[in-house]
């Protein structure tokens, strides 16, 4: 279990305890993004192992560090839970079970999979609808909650993400990265809880920046992987000809 956290002193300990309660035996790694409060001591006291970043990397850099470590330590599955307490650890066993039984590479905890969309504001809901529409033709399958950070990945996805992971606003771009490599993902319904401590950093201006940034990231990834695919196909096409010549 990886828990990215930045200044989550008030919530991270209960997240760690709750994860231990619902996934006994699972290792919990809190990735501290250079918090200035007592996040590290709170998480450590609750029984988590800590991966402290030497300076503030942002969410993507932080999550990727967790993926890299998990990959190096040989973990077969990793589930990410945010340190602000909005993800309900009671849903973790279902995500884990789906990850193991379905054989897909990524399972997304979706607050819309059962159409309730609990704990989501109007603006965010609109943003999610917009991204659903954009992603539908790119991914070739519908995704109800593309912005969810409550995700589980298997070792194949872990391998990809430990080498290449979007650094800012990673959730949507990560889906495109996986899809372009023909990896499979599924969604399971989860409940999101309201934030109990700290404040969300999302402002209208940041939301606009988010949309532009993510759209650009998505299209760059699409172009990048399509170009690689075409190059690979071209090289594959050349293969037999050179083979004949060489023989």
């Amino acid at each position, binding site marked *: 279990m990886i828990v990215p956290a930045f200044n989550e002193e008030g919530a991270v300990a209960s997240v760690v305890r709750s994860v231990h309660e619902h996934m006994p035996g699972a290792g919990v790694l809190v990735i501290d993004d250079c918090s200035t409060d007592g996040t590290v001591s709170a998480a450590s006291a609750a029984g988590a192992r800590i*991966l402290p*970043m030497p300076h503030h*990397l942002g969410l993507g850099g932080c999550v*990727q*560090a967790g993926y*890299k*470590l998990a990959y190096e330590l040989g973990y077969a599955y990793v589930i990410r839970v945010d340190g602000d307490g909005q993800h309900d650890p009671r849903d973790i066993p279902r995500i884990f079970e789906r990850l193991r039984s379905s054989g897909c590479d990524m399972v997304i905890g979706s607050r819309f999979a059962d159409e309730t969309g609990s704990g989501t504001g109007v603006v965010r809901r609109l943003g999610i609808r917009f991204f659903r529409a954009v992603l539908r033709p790119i991914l070739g399958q519908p995704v109800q909650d593309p912005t969810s950070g409550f995700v589980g990945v298997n070792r194949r996805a872990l391998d990809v993400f430990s080498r290449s992971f979007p650094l800012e606003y990673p959730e949507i771009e990560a889906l495109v990265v996986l899809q372009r490599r023909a990896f499979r993902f599924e969604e399971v319904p989860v409940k999101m809880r309201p934030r109990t401590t700290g404040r969300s950093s999302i402002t209208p201006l940041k939301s606009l920046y988010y949309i532009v940034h993510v759209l650009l990231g998505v299209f760059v990834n699409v172009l990048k992987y399509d170009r690689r695919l075409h190059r690979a196909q071209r090289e594959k096409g050349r293969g037999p000809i050179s083979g004949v010549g060489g023989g």
Partner: protein
Amino acid sequence: MDRLLNVTAGMSIVLLVLVLASVRRAHIRVEYSVTWLVAAGAMLVLSRSRTLLETLRGWTGLPDTPLTLFLFAGGVFLLMFFRFSVIISHLRDDNIALAQRVAILEFHLRQSISTTHET
């Protein structure tokens, strides 16, 4: 027109001196100063050589010589900003990869130390 060219020449000289002084004090690395020096040098040459500026105006088909000078300067500086954006992006990626590596190595080190203490 003459005043404009003189001001441009003066600004180019100030830029040249500033960049050279910064390189001497190691505030700018030599490899990153070259672009600035070339840009300032080009501006200085253009502002001192009317023939060259007129030739450039003729090539571009612009109606005005001062406009040619400023468009050229703007173009040069836009290219420089682009080059530095590329450099900064590479540095940021390298920096994040290094920070992650340091954090992971520290983690392994702490684990080994605690294992050693336990045994």
